[in-house]
């Protein structure tokens, strides 16, 4: 069976056409007095994509269709010193060129698109290499870290994801969105669903041919509410699975709507503190995952940024002009003793983040990034850093088509976890030393997606922040700014509790993070005096009294 499947893929005329054009580019592309490519790779995403957006039982928009997109990567120079790993200005004209391919089963037409993409990538590569050499000639000390690591010939032909069903997804999105009609306090709401089914193909000039499935369904349910003082907030719950069949039942999804409404209603009724609070904070659930993602995991991405000209020698140069290596140094303590961080992309086949090979075709590896609180390795692609020379199969394509080492299925494990009761007791003990009669628990941040109707991008503000008293009574508060949620605070975390798993979507890719709740011994919660707009004189259509319409 496996042999038959492999034979079918091997005869795939689209891939064959791409392989032919790739080989022609590798062997024949040359400009006068210029180096030839030393490596060419094509990365193709071929999928049926669906997007449905619904609000209050109506469809805002839906799009469906096949898409075939190629990134041609042409490297000039050598793995030690090449054209890709350099950026002189705002653009990224470095030999990575994205091209839309025809969607028809027409290999010759596909070749023509690939031909133009490769030609442009090669010319960019030659120009960028010469710009890099010129800039480096001016530099007092050169960077000796190699720019790339070549892989081995490899063939892996995974299955193709099935095309998703638009009608089913539309019906579901509409039904979930209609649930918001039961919650008049939620002023604006939407349900956005994406689904993709197809394959991701990597071929290169060293004989690699890797295919892995593209298979994902994302539901994002969001609602927005306004408090009596005009302040607004929004909440978003996401459900991300591999296929439509993996989704929870409609009743469960409707419960997410009810949960959003409950969170927003609690926020509306919350107290605005008049005095600042200094004391312990227990970060739970999705807020804990979010905190570790933002503060810790981004600093474990080992792929260096592209090199840049010497600072001050270009008038327009965006991004960091400092060291391109920004990950935590190896051997540095970043978490309490006993904590580990692992990433195993093949550990959860039901997750849309699951993958056997990364975006460079390298087999994914289970890695232990942090042991006993100390950094041992980084997420790595084939672009080495001064600390790590090899890929560990964590290369994920970024928006500029560069492949960077990135989280895939990451888990943070404390050496021991405390019960809720134990965390409560410990928090009360710490807060007493600050003279408080309560401590704070942060459960959710407000959503950081652009607001549906106003393009307002909410800050990373708490949505569900609660005062907890000794007798267990809880009181929601809002309108505060939290300070002290630093990397240092996580390193010195007092205690950890139960874990939560969240799946994130980045472009069309996914990654998954599991993190425990964590008790921090000192944060500051300062009342924030906002600039909220007055509420409108007309109630929202859902909140109007039927008799008056007002």
């Amino acid at each position, binding site marked *: 069976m496996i042999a038959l499947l492999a034979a079918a893929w091997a005869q795939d005329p689209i891939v064959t*056409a791409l392989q032919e054009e790739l080989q022609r580019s590798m062997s024949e592309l040359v400009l006068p007095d210029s180096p030839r490519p030393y490596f060419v790779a094509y990365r193709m995403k071929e999928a049926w994509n669906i997007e449905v957006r619904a609000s209050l039982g109506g469809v805002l928009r839906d*799009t469906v269709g096949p898409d075939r997109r190629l990134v041609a990567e042409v490297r000039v120079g050598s793995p030690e010193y090449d054209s890709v790993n350099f950026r002189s200005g705002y653009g990224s004209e470095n030999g990575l060129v994205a091209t839309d391919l*025809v969607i028809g089963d027409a290999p010759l037409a596909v070749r*023509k698109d690939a031909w133009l993409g490769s030609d442009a990538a090669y010319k960019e590569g030659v120009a960028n290499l010469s710009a890099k050499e010129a800039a480096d000639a001016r530099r007092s000390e050169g960077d000796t870290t190699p720019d790339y690591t070549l892989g081995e010939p490899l063939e892996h032909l995974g299955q193709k994801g099935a095309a998703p069903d638009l009608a089913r997804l539309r019906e579901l999105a509409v039904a979930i969105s209609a649930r918001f009609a039961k919650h008049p306090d939620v002023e604006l709401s939407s349900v956005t669903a994406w689904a993709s089914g197809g394959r991701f193909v990597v071929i290169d000039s060293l004989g690699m041919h890797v295919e892995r499935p593209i298979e994902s369904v994302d539901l994002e349910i969001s609602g927005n509410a306004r408090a009596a003082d005009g302040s607004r907030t929004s909440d978003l719950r996401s459900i991300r699975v591999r296929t439509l069949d993996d989704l929870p039942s409609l009743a469960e999804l409707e419960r997410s709507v009810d949960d959003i409404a409950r969170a927003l209603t609690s926020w509306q009724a919350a107290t605005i503190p008049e005095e600042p609070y200094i004391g312990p904070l227990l970060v739970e659930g999705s807020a804990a995952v979010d905190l570790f993602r933002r503060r810790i995991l981004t600093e474990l991405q080992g792929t260096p940024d592209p090199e840049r000209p010497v600072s001050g020698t270009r008038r327009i140069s965006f991004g960091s002009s400092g060291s391109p290596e920004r990950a935590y140094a190896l051997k540095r303590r970043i978490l309490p003793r006993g904590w580990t961080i692992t990433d195993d992309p093949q550990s959860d086949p039901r997750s849309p983040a699951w993958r056997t090979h990364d975006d460079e075709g390298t087999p994914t590896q289970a890695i232990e990034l942090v042991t006993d609180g100390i950094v041992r390795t980084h997420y790595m692609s084939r672009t080495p850093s001064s600390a790590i020379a090899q890929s560990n199969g964590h290369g994920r394509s970024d928006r500029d088509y560069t492949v960077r080492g990135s989280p895939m299925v990451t888990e943070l494990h404390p050496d021991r976890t405390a019960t809720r009761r134990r965390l409560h007791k410990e928090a009360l003990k710490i807060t007493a030393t600050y003279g408080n009669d309560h401590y704070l628990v942060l459960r959710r941040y407000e959503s950081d997606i652009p607001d549906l109707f106003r*393009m307002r991008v909410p800050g990373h503000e708490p949505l569900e922040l609660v005062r907890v008293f000794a007798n267990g009574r809880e009181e929601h508060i809002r309108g505060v700014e939290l300070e002290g949620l630093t990397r240092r605070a996580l390193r010195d975390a007092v205690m950890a509790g139960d874990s939560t798993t969240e799946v994130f979507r980045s472009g069309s890719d996914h990654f998954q993070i599991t993190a425990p709740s964590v008790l921090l011994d000192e944060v500051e919660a300062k009342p924030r005096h906002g600039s909220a*707009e007055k509420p409108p004189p007309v109630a929202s259509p859902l909140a109007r009294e039927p008799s008056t319409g007002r």
Partner: protein
Amino acid sequence: MWILSLVTARAEPPDPVLEALSRELEVSVEGWREEPDPPYYLAYRSVDRHVWRIEARYGALASSSDSRVRVLDVVARVGSFELDSTHPIRDASALQAPYHMGQQMPVSGPPEALQSVVWEATNKEVRDAQELWRQLQTVQKVKVEEIHEAPDFSPATAVVDVRPLAELEVDRGAWEDTLIEVSAVLDAHPDILRSAAELSAEAENHYIVTSEGTRLRHPRTWLRVDIHTEAIADDGMVLRIYRWKDVRVAEALPDADELTSWAEDLVQRTVALRVAPLGDAYDGPILLRGPAAGVFMHEVIGHRVEGHRQKDEKEGQTFREKIGTQLLPPDISIFDDPTLDTWTGTYLNGSYAYDDEGQPAQRAWIVRDGVFEGFLMSRSPIDIEGFHHSNGHGRASSYNTPTARMANTIVSSSRPVPVAELRAMLLAEVRAQGREYGMMIEELAGGFTMTGRVYPNSFNVRATYGWRVYADGRPDELVRGIDLVGTPLVALSNVMAAGDDPGVFNGFCGASSGSVPNAAVSPSLLIRQLETQKKESSSDRPPLLPKPQGPETGT
């Protein structure tokens, strides 16, 4: 292949969009009335747009999409007709102004789904208008009086007209097959780098509901088939040539045979242009062939007679004081008429029944018998007698506020000269000026013009296909890489004669109120003196490897 129909209005069911807009308008007017500085005018404009697009290239399907979108724009005015919140705050940075933006409305669902969007958009636009109004009252006190004082808005009679819905039904498979075939013809020559055959079809239903009582629903349909090619000359100049046809009904589209013939012709022209010599800077007689002449007039005079520019102190106002002045030869007239659906049998892209402020479309004369007569007007009045009200030219794309814009701009002559005679006149003028050759411009890809006071008040018309016409009888010589440039009054004063070959250029015009469909119609025009300049060029070498050629690989 395509069935595009206007469904007849027989016992039309209630329209959910019209109902939602009307209901929300009523509630909003009532609710905001109790606030300080309530809007004196509130309007909702919505466009429901069903769009099909198909693209084929290299003998294969490149994309095929079907989308439906419904967009809402809210206009709120605070103050009075004389002075209101839309009045420009002089010397203010555009970045300080609240940003008007449209909203996407659901294309289906219960009334609350539609009304929630309208409610949210109304809140934003009214609050923005109130803030601007309060700011304006102070700013007016610290600035000198304006030179041209005119009210900000003109009253208008309410219109109620609910027309049948436009609907679109497409035989997608048949058109995909046709375009695939045509795209293979376009790609056949090795010098053609890129090419495509495309079809766009849109059915739009426009809604306008205002606090003055206007309730409108009017349809618009549009289909375009378009083929284009791209080649690169040895000096790096990228050459793109297009051919297209805009129509209202599917039956008027060219069939596969006609498209194939177009494709063959376009390939030949592209290949010829690739090796044509570069044009150079030139001043002298130029013969503009039909559609090219229409675009020329669009850029030279059209944008400068848009009414709102006559009271904007940053605008050049070239024609503001020219009413009654002889601008063109006495046989030439120009008017703009959105009520015309065709001209000499060709569909006009700028046709509509009502403009985007809900005003009935009207013919507006710009030049009659060579004498400048007037401006295109939206509901923004100007302080010139006869131009205090709209003449049905308030236009905007979604997400923009309407201003005066062209629709179907028609240049005509009462003494048309046969084209062969016009060419003879060109040569006579070339000889009279002692020149080696004159220029004949056949095709344009569009143009642009600068109408303000800071930058040169000039135009640039982007020629794609032009010829040197030699005085000594040598064959005409195709040249590439030139644009027509000049300044408006001098250019108009050099118009000598018009031909008998009216040509239609259907396109989309982008300006401050967005991209709107329009048509420029003109016979060929002979210009005594006009300038060409070299076109900008890229510097990339042609592809290093030859184009992959058939047979199909891997099959």
